[in-house]
């Protein structure tokens, strides 16, 4: 029972996710557009971000139980080990029960493009951390 094999999941993709991805891609440099591919029971978004000086390749996976569970985003470009980075260069972005609105995944308000934007914000923090040694945003609580 999942995103790609249930009517509910397919409708979410067609009425929410696909339109926002197409809006994100509209007028954007082809190199920075989101590409989408179904892989097994998941949907994989591949894209490139440039939050500051550097360009990063990323992958966001919408798991079978998406949008109830948050998407998983990992950076494909090699990073230095840093705070808020999990195994496999997966970004630590959502914390259930967090008191910070942007740190608590909300299926009623967030789409996959919100996750892409959150990854951009994470990478901007990474670049600041890389230069200063300090993560500029507070911990999710």
């Amino acid at each position: 029972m999942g995103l790609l094999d249930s009517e509910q999941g397919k409708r979410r993709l067609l009425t929410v996710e696909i339109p926002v991805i197409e809006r994100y891609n509209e007028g954007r440099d082809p190199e920075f557009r989101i590409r989408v591919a179904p892989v097994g029971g998941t949907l994989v978004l591949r894209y490139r971000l440039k939050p500051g000086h550097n360009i990063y390749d990323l992958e966001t996976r919408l798991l079978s139980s998406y949008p109830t569970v948050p998407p998983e985003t990992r950076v494909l470009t090699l990073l230095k080990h840093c705070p808020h980075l999990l195994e496999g260069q997966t970004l630590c972005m959502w914390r259930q029960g967090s008191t910070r609105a942007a740190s608590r995944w909300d299926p009623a308000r967030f789409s996959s493009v919100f996750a892409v934007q959150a990854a951009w914000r994470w990478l901007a923090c990474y670049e600041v951390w890389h230069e200063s040694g300090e993560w500029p945003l507070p911990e999710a609580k």
Partner: protein
Amino acid sequence: MAPAGSQVRKGNRELIGYSQFPGNGMIHVFQVGAGSGGMPVLDMLVRDRRIDRVTLVEPDEYKPHNADRHVFPHSSAGELKAVLAEAWLKERRPDLEVNLIVADVLDTACQPEIEAAMAVADIGVCAVDNEPAKYHFDALMRKHGKRWTLGEVLSGGIGGFVHAFLPGGPCYGCVASHLKRSIEVEKPAIAEYSQPGGAVKEATVPATMASIHAIASLHALITFELMPPPQPSGSGASPAQNGLPFTSLLLTMKQVPDLFDEAFRPFRFRIARSPECLVCRAPEREVASEDLDVALHQAFARLGHE
């Protein structure tokens, strides 16, 4: 041969003259979950003679550790909770018709059976602890235009919520988004109603049976509130007249610094349906069920080559 419950049910209908719900009459409850919280809800509900039929969806086996907070004894370990639940209910209501679906409510293979039962049910009761199942139950209830209730005990038994949903009203996504619950609802190692959503092992102090039953009682009471009162046929009563002045009820059961100022304090939330809710808002463009696969295939083709 029809079960005894079915025959009695038919007899009661004719005797009392009730028509199908909505209106008046015998009520078919569709419940998901017969865990430590779900079972007392179901037990309390079926003591009401308006309910003559129950469909229960529950896949789990009863484990020895369940006995700490469950109504079933240690000696029942190893049996299916659904089967134990049916026996429990039949002991108290021999006339009750009980239909079991021994499956996870998210099981793809069982969706036709689940939906068929849901379509003919009158009211839904959700007593599961994981978010995907709650959202799925919500989607099915909205699809079939059914009213339903959901109970959630917070980790450690510090409090609990009961939510009531009506067709056309806010969905579970609207409610969860509005409440912005900052309380820990991580995944438990053992699926239990006592820790909705949540966490594995170390996580939290488990809720006590007393706190689980306190919320279960509220859950049953609020479910009763969504049912029509028994009245003679043709009196004009309709379920729309039965309503609650709130969507969600929170009862604190412990004082928790920075969270609950005092124990045993109720809070009532009236939550509107959000027009922006990504879970229940009307789509800009409707796609017929039979066209979903083609539309999705075309979208992937477009976005795969960007």
